[in-house]
């Protein structure tokens, strides 16, 4: 963690990403690397996967990765495989699709644990 603090990264549809950029999340560094990816109609799975991998494993200046659930569904295997504590990967709802807790990798794990405990 550097002194300035770490970044949040965003992967999602244009509106979601724009909203977060508006709030000041966006960052383009000296090497012209952006900390966000707008997923449009033409964006391929491998582009999303590359961005996700870059944000979660290759860059050390990112502490939180936000990814819309619809996009997360497209690279679900990678999201599930991400087990490290930092960066923290958060699934967020986009504007058109309501949040589905059951699809959220972390929440699924959490509710499973809570359910298991409730029964015990």
């Amino acid at each position: 963690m550097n002194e300035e603090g770490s970044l949040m990264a965003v992967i999602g549809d244009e509106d979601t990403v724009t909203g977060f950029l508006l709030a000041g999340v966006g960052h383009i560094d000296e090497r012209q690397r952006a900390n966000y990816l707008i997923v449009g109609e033409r964006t391929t799975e491998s582009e999303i996967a590359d961005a996700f991998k870059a944000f979660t494993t290759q860059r050390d200046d990112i502490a939180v990765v936000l990814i819309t659930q619809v996009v997360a569904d497209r690279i679900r295997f990678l999201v599930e495989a991400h087990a490290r504590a930092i960066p923290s990967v958060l699934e967020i709802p986009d504007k058109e699709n309501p949040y589905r807790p059951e699809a959220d990798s972390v929440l699924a794990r959490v509710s499973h644990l809570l359910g298991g405990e409730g029964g015990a």
Partner: protein
Amino acid sequence: MSSAGARLNVTPTVTTLAVIKSRLAGAQRGHRLLKKKADALTLRYRGILRDIVEAKRKLATSMRDAHFAWTRAKYAGGDAVKHAVLDGVDRANVRVMAHEDNVAGVKIPKFTCRKCGADERRMELTGLARGGARVREAKASYGEAIGLLSELASLQTAFVTLDEAIKTTNRRVNALENYVTPRLQNTVKYILSELDELEREEFFRLKKVQAKKKKDIEETEMMEAEEEKRITQAVDAELRAFGDVIGGEGGRGAGGNLIESEHDEDLLF
């Protein structure tokens, strides 16, 4: 249990026994402490699980509001506002600071959101003639969502970290419970039984020695007795022969005869 009967490979001596016993006590104390730690972690963990569910629910509402605030801004300002935001990206104003929280010796990263003041005003004229006020509302709304998200990120990180820590602790507890302690206990048992065995052997040996001694004594006595007997017999035989010579009398009641003859002899001499 698979490790039943397994033990350390040690020489069964009293000194080793003392060492192993102190190790066993250590393991048991460690087990108690780790168990306590696991309990503390699990307690915190359950709290976090509930908080995550709650935060995710709050987030759903917050994001919905933020998205709609942005829709209002786009409606009021048109695509120009969108492009201004997308093209205006430079350095991030929102940074995530990480601190460490300590739960029962486990370091848990905790995030807080910080806004860099310097760059804060850069985009504030966006939508000046169209939708500017709405844009600022949307910005504030996303700001709120980001606050919640950093909270959620902290919770989620804590969740992953604690999950790992609890697993490790439980592994240790289990190892102590099912492996280390039984082995030490078995070793103690082994040493004790070995020592017992030694004692028994010693006793047996002593007994053996005693028995031998006794036998030796007996043997000596027997040998002495035999010697005496042999001598007596020899004497007897001699006497008998002597008697035969003297009286031609058969060997009837040799003893009496012997004594008699001795007496006789005494009498004779």
